[in-house]
């Protein structure tokens, strides 16, 4: 699948409007969550970040979802690039977290201090849904739509920025360092999704990253 530069900004505008609407709604629903919020977040992610762009692709753009990296087939050549990207990512994160001691700015799930069974349960049930919906929206829908106008590199940077903006608006990451620690993984995930033309790969990686961070922190906190 070749991404052709498209000067038509209509699609870009629609995706941008959809992003704004979804972020506004997400903020609204998150502020009205009454329970611990995990289940609601899963619902919210599924509806807003997965179903909404799916509908847009099918009935407004009238295109195939596979064009937006929602497919199991991925480019084999991308695996090598993906591994290289992961290596670079690990190096960068090592510098930030270990060398610069930004560990305390890392984001972890709130249930890691609680019951271990519950943590495992949530990590394998709710988190995958949330991660997959997010990956499809940002790494598939947004990245692919922006790539036509902003170019691939621009689209990768833009989608990572939009993730950070969304998090800041909803109020998850109040500081600059937290934003940077969020931006960098999303940048690499965007690149990996692009080189493999699949959000499945990036979803697994994203989920694995969250799981790893939660487990490490849970382990460290319980020692």
């Amino acid at each position, binding site marked *: 699948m070749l991404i052709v530069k498209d000067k*038509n900004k*209509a*699609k870009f*505008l*629609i995706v941008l*409007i*959809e992003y704004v*609407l*979804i972020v506004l*709604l997400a903020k*609204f*629903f998150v502020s009205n969550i*009454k*329970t*611990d919020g995990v*289940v*609601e977040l899963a*619902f*919210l992610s599924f*509806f*807003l970040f997965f*179903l*909404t762009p799916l*509908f*847009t692709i099918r*009935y*407004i*753009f*009238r295109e195939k979802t596979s064009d937006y990296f929602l497919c199991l087939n991925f480019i084999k050549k991308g695996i090598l690039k993906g591994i290289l990207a992961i290596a670079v990512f690990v190096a960068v994160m090592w510098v930030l977290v270990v060398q610069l001691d930004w560990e305390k700015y890392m984001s972890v799930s709130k249930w890691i*201090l*609680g*019951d271990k*069974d*519950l943590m495992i*349960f949530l990590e394998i049930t709710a988190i995958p849904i949330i991660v997959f919906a997010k990956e499809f929206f940002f790494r598939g829908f947004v990245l692919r739509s922006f790539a036509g106008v902003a170019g691939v590199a621009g689209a990768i940077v833009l989608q990572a920025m939009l993730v950070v903006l969304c998090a800041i608006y909803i109020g998850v990451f109040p500081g600059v360092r937290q934003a940077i620690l969020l931006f960098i993984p999303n940048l690499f995930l965007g690149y990996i999704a692009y080189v493999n033309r699949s959000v499945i790969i990036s979803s697994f990686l994203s989920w694995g990253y969250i799981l790893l961070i939660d487990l490490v922190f849970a382990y460290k906190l319980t020692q």
Partner: protein
Amino acid sequence: MKKIKKIKKIVFAVMLGFIITQSIPVLALTPISIDVGDIGVGGLTDEFAEELENRYGYDRNIIRRSKKKAVAPTVEIHFDKTDPEEGEKVTAIASVKGFKNVTEDLYYTWYVLRTDSATGTPLAGETIAGAKERAMGIIARGEYDPELFGETYATDTDNDGFYASYGGQDGVGAKEGDGVGIYDDDPAVLADPDKQIVDTAAITRCYRHNFGIKVYDPADNAGANTRAGRDLIIECEHEFPSCSGHELGDGSFGLAEEECWRLDPNNPDTDGDGVEDEADLVGLNQNQFTWKYLDGDHVGVIVEGMSLSQIVEPGLNAYHKIMWAMPDICARKDESRTFISGDHCSPGEGDVGFGYLAAVPVNSISDQQLDPELDYIPKNPQFDDTTAILEEQRTDLVTVSSTMSNDNVDEDFIFYSWTIRRTDDHLEPFGPPLGAGDIEFESFEQGMGVKHLKFKPMGGLFGGDDKVFLFVTLIVSEHPELIGGSDVDARNLPIGAIESIIIPVARKDLALRIFNTTIVPGPGLSGNAWAQNVEICGAGGNPLYRDVCPVFGYQVIAVEANVLGGINAGDRFAWQFNGRPVQPPFDLDAYPGANNSNSNIIFLPMGGTGSSLQDITVTYKKNRGGVLTDIIAGRKISVNNPVAVIEAITGPGGSLSVSAVNGGNPATEAIPTIRWDQTESLDIFEADPGTQVNFRARIVPDYLTINAAATLIEDLEGDPANPGDDIILADNEVHLMWYLNGSFVDADFIADYPTMGITVAGDEIEFTMDPEGMYGSGFDLTARVEKKFSPDHAALLDDAWKMLDTHTLTNDKSVTIRLHCDSPFALGPNPTLREYLASSLANAPHYLIFSIRLAVAMALVWFVLFGFSYAIQLNKRL
């Protein structure tokens, strides 16, 4: 038609014949014979004329003289805009009177003077000649611009000259005369003074009318009064403008003049108004002048024509005098006009009394005398001196308001200065302006836009008087420096104004006190009578009740007019209830000494139902030494059924039994919930399960008490203590009943639910928030207040006012006490997986609703995106 004419002729002939034939016999039969030959018809006529002249002043020249006394020509200027913006087009309109010519034949010479807008002084270099040239050029040119049309003034082909005869287009023409400077009724210029025939050699046919002077000035005009109303012979000279020495009105209008006036040399009517160029410049038929206004512009006009007054030259028929109408009369006293050199108003040159070239300011506001009108509310203000009676100060706030009757006056930019002084005779104020101790001002006394003065009269104002008159004076002006009384500004323009109003203020030494009543044995029909009981809504009581006194249906209240210093013989009271005179009761014996036409106490029954605000008013005619002063006092009452307001008791000592149960600790109070506006709810409380809550019923009106013995009894008909008897409530008692979730709390109920620990005593109820108890999630607590009236009360109401149907008054008030517990959605701080799953299952409905809301939100997003994609024709572009 011919037949009718013929008949008319016949009738006329018969009547003529009848008169002739009948007059001869009358003369013949007259006892005194008349010798027609001696007297002659001519002699008879002369005698008759002489008699007329002697008796009535008519002589043979009366007609000739009367024609000389016609109204002299005058002109007034009006503007279509009185407050124009700079650059805005303004039209000046000249209204003339006293001309024989029609408008189309008159010469209107306009001039527009540029002046300093602040002072009205003509700018440097301004002259009347220049002002005329400016205005008449605009009239002739219109919007024509020679530069715009590339006019080089090489040729003149339009032949637009105009010869202006003196006295207007249809004028009689002028001539030279040696009588210039002499009034036309002077014998020196009259050929026949009796017949007022002028000397042809003396007159010029041009005159200047002397209108007289407004103010006699002996230094300048010793004989001015003798000249008023006469016409001075002057040299005939048009008032037309000129341009670079080119005279107008000579019939020659060549290329040089066209260029000088910047007109179109190839168009005879440059401005296209139907009047050719030179005629335009002499002002023929130009009774309007439109120009672009500049701040400070003053405008004038001279109108040349023939007056209505006539002159007669020997051998000629009478003709009309040539005159010039000007905007004003020279007196050097009218400061609203602009004076400038060459305006024909130089007192030293004998111009006083004659018209002159006044220039009128366009902005009429500066020329307009402000005209404020004052009014005040309330109409009968009073100072309340009855604080000692009601502990309330109810002095009226007096508001004096000014409104300008002038149009186009922005009151927000007018400066106001208010002063209050005393007055006795209603004509003149006296004493210094009133201040602290006499008046308490509630607004500024002066400043820009202070068109309302608010104040309260104080006790010091009155001394020993019951009534004083305040003389409120308002000075208004357009400039703050004028505050202080001057009515002229820096331009010597009269722009200030003074207005005053007299306000009578009475000292109210009368207050109404409201009392509850009781029934005592008396001479009424039922053997009872109302008697004044304790005061309600008065000093020492609930302060809120002083404004509006709460009463209830079928209650009888006594209202007493209390006068400081006591009531004198001759004082009178007129009572009104809701604006209607209070009627005496049917049974006068029920109210000894009250409810007659001049009593300071009345008894009033309240209506049985309804919830309304009602007024009791008394007008007190205070008689002190024959001087009557009207004093008005009133109270407001609110008629409602008695009600119990339920309040949660907080803190130690508030509960009935908890303090003992908890070892003296305060009860766990019911906490008011927070409403949407972040205020505490008055009717929804929360309390933790298992805690005891305590509520009190506060009775409104608070002068009523609870019959404590009847609190656990629902039906008062049948006293449990005395079977067969009813429980009779006293006049000031009510029956309080508690209900929990709709069930009456009596002894049986308390016994049925021992775990709730219900205690009822006095005005309080206490119980436990028992989660396992009878209702689970909370309680609705209702306090019912019942007011039953005694048979004596009902009978006396019937006797006195024929109020037959005395109902029992009932009112319920409820609160809800919810069990306070954590949200069922919430999990503990460290839930286990099992608890989490249980919570998720329990919250399934919530998740369902959450999902539905998400779906609806998603649909909205799709709707917006669809609309947008259609709007931008997305698929066509794709």
